[in-house]
């Protein structure tokens, strides 16, 4: 367990992770205030839990950036070599880092989603925003899981790419651009989009939600898998990528 302590000390002894975490939490909560703060009359009464969560994906990106930086800055400053020197069992060390980063990311995911829901309930006090259905619990509590898994994704990409700009570009372009553009490919495009990893991450959150004011189909309509299978599928991608990353890091020269 010493690797957990090592990575905890490393992460909290520099400032940028703190900033990332604060920004991630504030983004979701702030955007919830924006979407619910100006609702009047019937609109306010029709507000749903779903519309308190527009900032979640942005926060998720911020936490992925933090997760990737936790690795790439080590390569940037050469501390990865000191790290491997102290712990030659590279896979164990990197898994320790992954665990710490994923845990924090999950925690921020929960703070963000419940914080946003709390702010939404405060502003749209005339709407029924109580958490009643399993789907609503999944939307809020599940955010923690999705954040944690995407952090694993980000750490794996960081290990493979080894430099900040490249890793961050991939982590932002993949979910936001690549997964949305693949359905332009004729014939197979729709299937590719349905089976894309991040699409399944959000499918886990969005299935069965009352999109309400956000409009029908705001959270997607075309799901390949049932919610929990979708999450498992998303996690499978992260695990596969992490495995490749660990094998690569153990073999390559540091």
């Amino acid at each position, binding site marked *: 367990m*010493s690797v957990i302590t090592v990575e905890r000390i490393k992460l909290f002894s520099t400032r940028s992770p703190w900033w990332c975490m604060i920004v991630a939490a504030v983004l979701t909560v702030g955007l919830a205030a924006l979407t619910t703060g100006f609702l009047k009359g019937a609109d306010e009464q029709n507000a749903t839990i779903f519309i308190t969560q527009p900032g979640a994906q942005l926060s998720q990106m911020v936490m992925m950036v933090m997760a990737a930086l936790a690795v790439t800055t080590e390569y940037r400053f050469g501390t990865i070599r000191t*790290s491997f020197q102290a712990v030659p069992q590279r896979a164990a060390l990197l898994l320790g880092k992954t665990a710490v980063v994923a845990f924090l990311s999950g925690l921020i995911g929960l703070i963000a989603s419940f914080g946003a829901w709390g702010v939404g309930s405060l502003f749209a006090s005339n709407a029924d925003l109580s958490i009643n259905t399993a789907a609503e619990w999944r939307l809020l509590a599940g955010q923690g899981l999705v954040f944690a898994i995407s952090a694993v994704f980000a750490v794996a990409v960081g290990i493979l790419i080894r430099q900040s700009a490249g890793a961050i570009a991939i982590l932002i372009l993949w979910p936001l651009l690549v997964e949305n553009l693949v359905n332009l490919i004729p014939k197979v495009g729709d299937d590719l989009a349905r089976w894309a990893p991040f699409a399944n991450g959000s499918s886990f959150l969005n299935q069965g939600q009352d999109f309400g004011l956000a409009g029908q189909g705001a959270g997607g309509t075309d799901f390949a898998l049932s919610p929990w299978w979708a999450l498992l599928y998303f996690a499978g991608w992260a695990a596969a990528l992490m495995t490749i990353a660990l094998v690569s890091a153990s073999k390559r020269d540091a």
Partner: protein
Amino acid sequence: MIEAKGLTKRYGATVAVDNLSFEVKPGKVTGFLGPNGAGKSTTMRMILGLDTPTSGEVTIDGQRYRDLKRPLTKVGALLDAKWVHPNRSARAHLAWMAASNKLPKDSVDKALEMVGLSAVANKRAGAFSLGMSQRLGIAGALLGDPEVLLFDEPVNGLDPEGIVWIRTFMHRLADEGRTVLVSSHLLSEMALTAEDLVVIGRGKLIMQSTTQEFVDRASGTTVKVRTPQLDQLAGVLNGQQLVTRIEDVEDEGKVLFVDGDVRTDQVGEAAAAHGIVLHELTLQRGSLEQAFMQMTGDSVEYHAQDEIAAVTQLDAPSGTEVAAGPKEDN
């Protein structure tokens, strides 16, 4: 003891370390000597398990570095003083290292004190001068109180004060019975610091011996003579089958050197027999620099001829020149 057997590292077509075998004996400072780009850093990275050898292996007391359980208690190393996160404090940097090997809580403060950084322990490492960074690196190396210590070019870029400090420190470490391997391309530094030498050039072992042996074996003695009857003496000595050369030495004018293992007695007697006045007659030992140039110069030359032979054999076009190895000094 560090033991390398047939250690080889290839980067594509470039051979950075070529079938290198050597031993670093316990309780001594061993200098790891070679010109820039000779493969010293690559070898050190392989000792620490950071780079994987293409073939061969290197062990520390019979174990490969990657198999060590708490490596910092066995081997301490400073390869690059800049391998520190600039926004992390010196104390935090050592704290995570200590945690990784389950070292006692006070080891961080002890190490900081030993290198004299206690006062700036909570300052960010990015603001440190090179000398201070170097000390922080040494604190990291000493953290686990290891028997074996590796330092890569520890005096590079340091001011005189820093150099003296490092030198004294190395001696102290060896006096404590530790095994110290220090790489350098600065010969005078090695002459002052190291007892044993491992000399490499172009990734190959040139010689492993004590520093004294290295100097003795590499260059013979020379006799220096100053005399107003320069040509006459040269003629006499040449008559005795001795090799002489006349050189212009600054502030001294023309000076006669007698090469080969000749003794001052022989030169003095020859001069007396012919009534030649001598102003100076001294025996000069070869310096470490001379020895080094002689040995690595040979290796480079030999290597260059090798290349040419290979090229003509293969009838290859251009571009076969050996490129610089991996980034050695960055």
